């Protein structure tokens, strides 16, 4: 599904290489986790895949179902099925959450030559999905993420994911800023979306999110590269011993 080959990325503004040859394949139906110390390039990878400005790809490719993502605008990638759950969801004062969701859903449907959802159909679907994430009507009415607590923002990300039904979901430190209960709620939302046709890339610092979202494959990223790949036990090793042993072993 998602295939990243030899991806090299530097910051546009300064001559600083962040990703130095990332190779990674996420198959449909699988959950891959990426762990790694601060500054290893995890968030950069998620931004580059979703098309954020400010990064320059100097080498390599990233394809989704064979289509090159790196040549596309962010909205085109979204229409192909890419989704990034932001580490810091952006507040947009003045744009109602509901308007935002409907605009996004219909923009993607339009881009895929599908019929737009009517206001009433949309409302039905969004209410149902919001309920399972414990998002109340008030939150849907408020401006996007404005005045939301950390937990509400992350739940709102998962709601967007549920509404947009992407093929490939990247979760960038979705557990940051969440208490145990909130993390469980978010994880349940993610698990509900797991199915054979969908791939996940979960970026996290901590094992505890992976207790709730069980990964199939765990990668360790350091200094802009995937340095080790293994099963769920790799995450436990990190939790118990930190990165030092693994990094030493790789070097």
């Amino acid at each position, binding site marked *: 599904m998602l295939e990243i080959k030899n991806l090299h990325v530097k910051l546009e503004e300064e001559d600083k290489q962040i990703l130095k040859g990332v190779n990674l394949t996420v198959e449909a139906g699988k959950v891959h986790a990426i762990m790694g110390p601060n500054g290893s390039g995890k968030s950069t990878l998620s931004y580059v895949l*979703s*098309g*954020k*400005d400010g990064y320059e790809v100097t080498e390599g490719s990233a394809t989704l179902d064979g289509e090159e993502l790196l040549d596309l*605008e*962010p*909205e085109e*990638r*979204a*229409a192909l099925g890419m*989704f*990034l759950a*932001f580490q810091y*969801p*952006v*507040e*947009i*004062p*003045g*744009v109602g959450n509901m*308007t*935002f969701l409907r*605009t*996004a859903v219909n*923009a*993607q449907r339009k*881009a895929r030559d599908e019929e737009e959802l009517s206001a009433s159909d949309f409302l039905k679907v969004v209410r149902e999905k919001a309920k399972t994430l414990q998002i109340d009507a008030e939150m849907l009415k408020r*401006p*996007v993420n404005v005045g939301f607590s950390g937990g509400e923002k992350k739940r709102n990300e998962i709601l*967007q994911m549920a509404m*947009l039904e992407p093929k490939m979901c990247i979760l960038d430190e979705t557990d940051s800023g969440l208490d145990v209960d909130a993390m469980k709620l978010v994880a349940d939302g993610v698990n509900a979306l797991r199915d054979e046709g969908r791939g996940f890339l979960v970026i996290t610092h901590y094992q505890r999110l992976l207790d709730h979202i069980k990964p199939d494959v765990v990668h360790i990223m350091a200094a802009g590269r995937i340095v080790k790949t293994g099963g769920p036990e790799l995450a436990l090793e990190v939790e118990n011993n930190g990165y030092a042993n693994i990094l030493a072993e790789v070097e």
Partner: protein
Amino acid sequence: MALPELKQSTTAARLAALSLPEGGCLEVARRAALSRVQSMGLPDRRDEYWKYTRPDTLTAVEAPRAAVLEAGEAPMFAEFDRLKVVFVDGVFDAEASDDLALEGVTIERLSDLRSKDIHWAKDLYGVLEARGQSPVERPLAALNTAFAEDGVVIHVTGSPSKPINLIYVHDSDSSDAILHHVVKVDSGAEATILENGPAASRFNKAMEIDIADGGTLHLVRAQGRDHERRAATHLFARLGSESVFKSFTLTVNGVLTRNEAIVEFTGDDAVAHVAGACVGDGDFHHDDTVFITHDAVNCESRQVFKKVLRNGATGVFQGKILVKPGAQKTDGYQISQSLLLDDDSQFLAKPELEIYADDVACSHGSTSGAIDEDGLFYLRSRGVPEGEATDLMTLAFLAEAVQEIDSDEIAAEVNERLHGWLSRRR
């Protein structure tokens, strides 16, 4: 003091091209206004109050031509249940207008007052304008008082069941219109006035509003989108105790617009909100000039102005809150913000506070900025194309001003129009 020669000759030339309507109860006020113009002279570039906006096309003898826009859409408020009062190039059109009878309000033509010696409007016509000439001169308003042939005088005595919609049709590309309205709201009465349309190639409009104790007036206007039209408007409002005045102005296009609002609190516990949203492109120049005088206790004033500017458009804001001695517990708020969609556009702001009371809360803020890139990326990452995302962000920027409209129905109409215009221009 003698006027500078150039100012004197400009003023004399302009006045010579106009003739003072004679007869009736307003003639004295007209003559007084004429002498005010003669002593002040019409504005020119050297006047401090016109530092950011060139008045020459507003004071020239001939109105510059302005093509009539074929908008290809229903006029604003067309779907509303309202009482229509139509002016074409500044002349009342009885046929296009509704019957002016409506319970809770009396509406008469200004020109009818020429045959009346006694009328309530005599106590207001030119009176609020004259009060508004100090401490800053507003010669175009005095010119309006002297020469306006048409307009309406509205006396709100109760709570009319529907809004009064003043519709200004632009028909001739060389039209030059002067309209003057007087609105008197009785104690406890409440009305909504809607205004829309470009009115003329050049439009000079004044509205004097007197709200008695406990009265409420909502004023929502949409200035026409004709690209080359020019307008200088003045709003003079005097508020009694516990009265409420809410005004919102939408301006999209128009090569030159100067909207002055002069609000005076004379009774305690009153509320005045003056808001505006504008979207300008290219040679668009839009100026909001506001002067709010607190001369009573515990009054709230709120100014919210938002401007979206692109392709070299210019926005101006001159807003002042004057709190007189004794006007304690004043709550004055003022914000003016511009969203600059490119490097060529500019926003010139002069926010002012002048306070002579010690127990007041006044704040002002003025900002200029580009569109929030993080917000834009967030929307795009969800599949919203860049143009549509920019429109959403633009509407969101304007929302704080549009929210000043109390009626959800009217606010929805404003938002819908804005959305349509933005997306068509993409």
